[in-house]
């Protein structure tokens, strides 16, 4: 589980959690994850999910597949076909 708060500094933080390489992705494979955000609506934090087909370095994460600002406090479940991105 990843849990962020003020990790990364009091202001302007930008944190990345990168998976190990996922190989030979097929058209019927789905990436699933769950997110919870707290507190709702107070701070302007955002979360993005990006894909790199090259190296695990930030410049190579050029495919944005998910972005949320100020999620509701409840749990949300996300799943998408990687092939369709």
């Amino acid at each position: 589980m990843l849990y962020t708060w003020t990790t990364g500094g009091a202001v302007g933080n930008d944190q990345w959690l990168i998976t190990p390489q996922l190989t030979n992705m097929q058209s019927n494979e789905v990436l699933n994850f769950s997110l919870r955000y707290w507190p709702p609506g107070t701070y302007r934090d955002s979360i993005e999910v990006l894909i790199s087909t090259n190296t695990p370095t930030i410049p190579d994460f050029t495919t944005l597949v998910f972005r949320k600002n100020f999620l509701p406090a409840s749990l949300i479940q996300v799943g998408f076909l990687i092939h369709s991105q």
Partner: protein
Amino acid sequence: MVPNGSNIYVAFREFVADNLNDGASFSLDLVEVTTGSPNDIATISVDKPSGSVVLPTPLIAPKASFRNVGTAAQTNVPVTYNISGPVNYSNNKTIASIAPGATVQVTFDSTFNPTVGTYNTTVYCSLGSDVDRSNDTLRTTFNAVDPSYGTQNGISFANNFADNAPSKPAFCWKDTTGSTSLVVNNINVSSAPLTGTLDDGYWRVGNALNGKKIKMGGVSYDSFFVATNGMIGFANNTGLTSFSPSLVSTIRPAIYPLWQDFDFRPPTTGGVGSSRISYKVISDFQLVVTYDRAQEWNNAVVDTNDHVSFQVVIELLQATDPSNSRMLVQIADGTNGNTGSKYLQYYNTDFLGAHVMGMQTAAGDAAYYRAAYPLSTYPGPLFGPGNTNLAVQYGNNANILNHACGGMQMNLTASIEAMTPFGVGDTVTVLLRSTSSPYEIRDGAKGYMNGSGSATLNFFKTVTGSYFVSVYHRNALETWSAGGVASSGLTSSYDFTTSVGQAFGSNMVVVSGEASFYSGDVNQDGVIDLSDGSDVDNDAFNFVSGYVNTDVNGDGVVDLTDAAYVDNNALNFVGVVKP
């Protein structure tokens, strides 16, 4: 498009969108890659309502998003949105078609009209051939709040527009004539000690409450600490120098009338009058702290007319009063430049600096009326509709947040045992109280009662009605009227002297034919006993003279004559009697 057979990395990135403040937390869990099935629709988010719904609101059209996480295109997918709470809602829709990997946001019927309360939502899709039911349903909770009133941690608040609240205050700016200034146009003019600076500091003010107490969270305070950044503390706390409003501070006990980064440089061109912080005590029952034209500190940019005026009115109580002080915050509109046009412009466009309005007890019980950074979890308005004056009152009883406006003159006739029968006059404080429990203070006035026992008292927020009259004097016993005293809203009169039955519990003594308040409660603790006697004896032993509480008969000298009144009443176990 990620090509089939690719090797990929997935990154989860959390960042601060406004580059201003990081305080949110994300929890990420259950990350996995699974093999998709042909028929699998997922409910992926409940989009609306979410968080807090601010009332009143137009009819709401709930929204939710669904994704086809299967490998086959789907048509005619049934989806349902249910809400349960004070108002229930249920609606079904059909997604006509959804391609693999696609997301569709569905807008349900706009018929949801919430009232105040907590709601549970359940959203689900019902594709008959769906092979994975675990991702079909999402549940969330949201609150519908009326920002004009509420209760948090036992502390209630209401503003002057809270028509649905159990009670609401009126806006009546207190006259600041005679106030003691702390800072004027960036010059410290106070003899009270200052901690910090004129930009981020606070004054420690003691011995100003004339023996009365500020009560918060059941604790009595006899000092107050006025901060330049819109806070008033009741205990010394160096956090009062803070210019960073927060919902998790330990700056307490305190009220945050408008905690924002201010300074008190002179108003810039276009401003009217001076910038100033001042305080005064009205009739020994209200502390009024006024911030005139507090200048918003805006990254050192000098903005014309970027200032706000606000006032805090704190109820002062007897030490023996079981209540907590109600506290009123009044925000002035743009009349006479009290609040600047630029400040109002910033407010209306969400560009004001971070600010918090609320209060917090020593034990950490907090209530927040407004918090904006600039997003607002607590969305109480800073001004009324059309940028008009606003009043917000805080207290422990939602039914008596009823600060009122009005004017009434009372002719009081009374006698103080050791003074009036001998032609000695003195100052009295008179409170008008509700006739029903907890007999909250509705208004108060202080005046001089002459040697004939007559006093004229001017009240400024009394409306037509009936009130208990409670009278206070520096060394007489607190005495209440036998019952409610009618007020026309303009005039009223009451005569305690005609018989002891004029006092609640007949708690008076007849002197020279006139029913009189008992003398000798030197320490104002509601009973006349040995502790009062020892105070008098000590002062008599030391030949104390002047206007002191131990001078029971008001002749300017503390001696055995004064002690005699105390001893006699102590012997008879005289104490306050009130409803």
